[in-house]
């Protein structure tokens, strides 16, 4: 079965070999658990495997090779395991392994402090391998098995520190939602394969489903891939599970695993299912817009740094899904150029999000290592103690807040340009919804800026709010190298977005049948999505202008005016040496925005408990915030399940005679039903 020309499938073979190496590393980790150096050994080997996967993905993409396919004699005997490497897979292979490789480097340093190595090291390579296999899989069986491997290994990593009650709860909700997602995907592929059970993607592609069936598949994939990506209202597990894992795994889950989910969504909806209908775009757009705003609003009010980042992942997933929804809408309207723009924007944002979200999670891991806490209210002033981490985190914060000239701005700018094309859409519901979604995107981008001003300001600026923060030490060189490399990439990709757009062209061509015009040939390395008279942007020039005028201003002022500087106590309107607790903290910076959106989104209730005049008792101020999604959707379901479980609980304590009676009764009923069944 495994007969193939080696030369034609070189990249794919190399990828599969690297995946096999990753599985081997799991065994190695188990064997060498007691060896002290095993942590560094495993992570460095994982880095090598990821680098090899990255290289094979890049080779395939930049050579413009034809799709490579291999069938191995694994899995179901009549099906085999199909693997395929095409442009879309190779783009995601690059995204995935860029995040994975940097996480491995970070983990070499970070993993030294791990006290539960046995619960992290064996699962880490499996997690990486499973994500790669999802991207390479070319039949439903392989895809689902890899997907489930990915869920279970990441679940094990979430449960690494299982003594903390919050982690156990996070793990429980995660495994429930992951199972739900897998079931939805299983059903989706079942419906796609049809009664013949042709599970390989080539056969599925050859027989597009009927419109109604396709609609069912859309819903199932939205639930299956959407729940893994964190699409509202299926996002509830994500802010619990991502922060619970060790920080390099959090970075992988937020930066990389959500992209694998996006890949699953794209693979089914842009490849397997055939031509889209116009209302699919509507559904995906609405889900994306709502997800973006909900995610960032909840990110704004969290006080756990890693949870802020997890909620912000939900926001960015919303951004990506808006791009995909636009692409679906344009494609169904016969506007391939616009669809290419929207699809490129979505892929570009996925790539960017992997860069800056991994960077930010590494930064939060460094803070956690240095101060022993993820609570923002215990940090402060870390820019003095951890200058390199602070700088890298600042670059990540700027990128995720979509500030020019960093990479986040380039992809959000493309998304907005795609929205400006949408009056061309023919259907009225789309025409009315798209400007609203544009407004939601603009709102969430602005709120993301506020969110990261708060995150960076409270953690790194100001005065230390705890002894640990005052005595924090800069982290190890490995972690700094990983953060520095990602920060540099955020800047480079932001300055030269044209090359990324060009690299995405083959994937866009395959998915929507068109691609954006080549950007690298445009003078001055600008990006011009449609025509220069319509819009253009040049990050390189903007950056050069800002740096040049900054230098000119600084030199002129220092030369002509004054350069004298005196250090004094803070002015603070004359208040002498106030306690660091008087600074604005995580809660208070968010308070104005919480008030604006409070009743509507958060159902926030503020309770002030003032002691009577003359009493020396302390006053209390309490804010309660509820997640509406949890209250209205999940709480009733959980209530129903526990009610049913309680009622059925009686069945466990019956005598043997009663059980026998039940068995007999059900047998009689079944036989009766069989006899009465109209044949």
């Amino acid at each position, binding site marked *: 079965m495994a007969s193939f020309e080696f030369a034609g499938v070189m990249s794919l073979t190399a990828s599969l070999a690297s995946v096999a190496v990753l599985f081997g590393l799991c065994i190695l980790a188990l064997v060498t658990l007691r060896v002290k150096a095993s942590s560094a050994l495993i992570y460095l080997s994982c880095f090598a495997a990821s680098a090899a996967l990255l290289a094979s993905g890049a080779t395939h993409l930049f050579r413009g090779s034809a799709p490579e396919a291999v069938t191995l004699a694994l899995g179901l005997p009549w099906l085999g395991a199909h693997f395929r490497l095409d442009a879309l897979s190779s783009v995601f292979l690059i995204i995935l392994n860029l995040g994975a490789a940097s996480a491995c480097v970070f983990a070499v340093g970070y993993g030294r402090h791990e006290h539960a190595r046995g619960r992290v090291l064996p699962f880490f390579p499996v997690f990486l391998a499973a994500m790669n296999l999802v991207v390479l899989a070319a039949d439903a069986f392989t895809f689902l098995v890899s997907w489930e491997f990915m869920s279970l290994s990441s679940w094990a990593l979430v449960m690494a520190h299982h003594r903390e009650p919050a982690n156990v709860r996070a793990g429980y909700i995660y495994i429930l939602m992951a199972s739900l997602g897998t079931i939805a995907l299983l059903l989706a592929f079942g419906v796609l394969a049809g009664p013949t059970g042709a599970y390989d993607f080539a056969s599925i592609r050859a027989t597009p489903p009927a419109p109604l069936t396709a609609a069912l598949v859309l819903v199932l994939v939205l639930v299956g891939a959407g729940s893994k990506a964190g699409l509202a209202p299926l996002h509830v597990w994500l802010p619990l599970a991502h922060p619970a894992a060790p920080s390099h795994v959090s970075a992988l889950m937020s930066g990389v695993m959500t992209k694998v989910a996006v890949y699953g969504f794209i693979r089914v909806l842009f490849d397997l299912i055939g031509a889209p209908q116009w209302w699919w775009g509507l559904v995906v757009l609405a889900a994306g817009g709502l997800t973006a705003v909900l995610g960032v609003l909840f990110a704004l009010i969290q006080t756990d740094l890693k949870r802020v980042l997890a909620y912000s992942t939900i926001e960015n997933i919303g951004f990506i899904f808006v791009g995909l929804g636009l692409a679906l809408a344009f494609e169904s309207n016969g506007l391939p150029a616009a669809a290419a723009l929207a699809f490129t924007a979505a892929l570009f944002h996925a790539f960017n999000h992997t860069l800056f979200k991994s960077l930010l999670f590494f930064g939060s891991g460094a803070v956690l290592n240095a101060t022993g806490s993820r609570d923002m209210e215990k940090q402060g002033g870390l820019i003095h103690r951890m200058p390199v981490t602070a700088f890298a985190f600042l670059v990540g914060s700027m990128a995720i807040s979509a500030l020019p000239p960093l990479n986040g701005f380039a992809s959000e700018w493309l998304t907005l340009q795609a929205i400006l094309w949408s009056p061309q859409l023919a259907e009225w519901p789309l025409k009315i919804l798209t400007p609203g979604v544009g407004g939601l995107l603009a709102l969430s981008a602005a709120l993301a800026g*506020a969110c990261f001003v708060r995150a960076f300001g409270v953690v790194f600026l100001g005065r230390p709010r705890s002894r640990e923060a005052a005595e924090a030490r800069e982290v190890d060189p490995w972690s700094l190298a990983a953060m520095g490399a990602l920060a540099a990439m955020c800047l480079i990709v932001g300055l030269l977005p044209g090359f990324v757009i060009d690299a995405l062209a083959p994937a866009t061509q395959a998915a929507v049948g068109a691609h954006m015009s080549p950007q690298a040939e445009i003078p001055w390395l600008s990006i011009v999505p449609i025509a220069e008279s319509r819009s253009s942007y040049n990050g390189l020039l903007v950056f050069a*202008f800002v740096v040049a005028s900054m230098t000119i201003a600084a030199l002129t002022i220092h030369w002509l005016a004054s350069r004298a500087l005196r250090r004094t106590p803070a002015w603070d309107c004359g208040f002498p040496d106030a306690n660091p607790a008087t600074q604005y903290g995580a809660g208070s910076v968010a308070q104005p925005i919480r008030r604006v959106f409070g009743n509507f989104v958060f159902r926030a209730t503020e309770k002030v408990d003032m002691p009577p005049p003359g009493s020396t008792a302390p006053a209390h101020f309490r804010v309660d915030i509820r997640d509406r999604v949890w209250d209205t959707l999940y709480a009733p379901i959980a209530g129903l399940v526990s009610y049913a479980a309680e009622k059925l609980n009686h069945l466990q304590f019956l005598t043997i005679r009663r059980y026998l009676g039940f068995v007999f009764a059900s047998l009689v009923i079944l036989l009766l039903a069989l006899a009465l069944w109209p044949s």
Partner: protein
Amino acid sequence: MIRDLFVQGAQMLLVLAIAPLVTGVVRSMKARLLRRQGPPILQPYRDLARLLRKEATLAHNASWLFRATPYLVFSATWIAAALVPTFAAGMIFSWSADLIAIVALLGGARFFLALAGMDVGTAFGGIGTSREVMIAALAEPALIMIVFTVALIAGSTQLSTITTFMASPEVGLRVSLGLALIALIMVALAENARMPIDNPATHLELTMVHEAMVLEYSGRHLALIELAASLKLIVYMSLIACVFLPWGVASATGERDALLLGAAFYLGKLLACSVALAIFEITIAKLRVFRAPDFIGAALMLGLLATLLRFVSEGL
């Protein structure tokens, strides 16, 4: 090429030179309207010169970010001012950033100013920052919606193209443009810390937003921040002028006389905007901080409505 660069340089120097003047005109106009003597029109220049000469004092725990922010804020605002058409459209670098990028550039300046407010670790800086980001979180999407409206009408997000299109006779009166203009004025008031959102004259700390954020700055740092604030006012005035009052804007490649005429028109528009701002500010009271979201929210809704109108009418 040299000539194009020269025209671009002339615009950069022009906005830098007259930014304090516009602030001075608005201040003295307000004072006169309130029957006060008021400071002389040139007072902002004297303030800047005085601040620049003085030594800068820094709090003991101020970080490098605190010191770099004034330069960053100033240069980002200056570049934004250089990219908005003032007396001429189609400058040599006008394609390097479109209107969305200019909005984001100003957002970047605010990002750093808000961070600087938290750097020293005092309560006043934090109060300014938290309110500034709240206002910005609503004002920025409103501005983007206005950009959408204008871009859909002109078929471009390039400001030079928009200006040229707006000056052409095919625009006519449109409801969406009217809504966008009102929304843009509201956003401009909020973004420039003007009444009714913030009071630029106050020094009562609890009522301020912008001033609280920059409370710890002194000397040359404060001078740069004040200059950046004046420049930002000019950016918004130029933006309103080039989109909604596009008459008399020369082409950057035109004759010298045309450029001079454009400059005269531009100064006239700035004067008109300053007078309008002064009159508006003395006729309105400052809003409570938690009423400010209603004001900017209205701008957001107007912007959204204008965009929606464009989307709907585009298909007809």
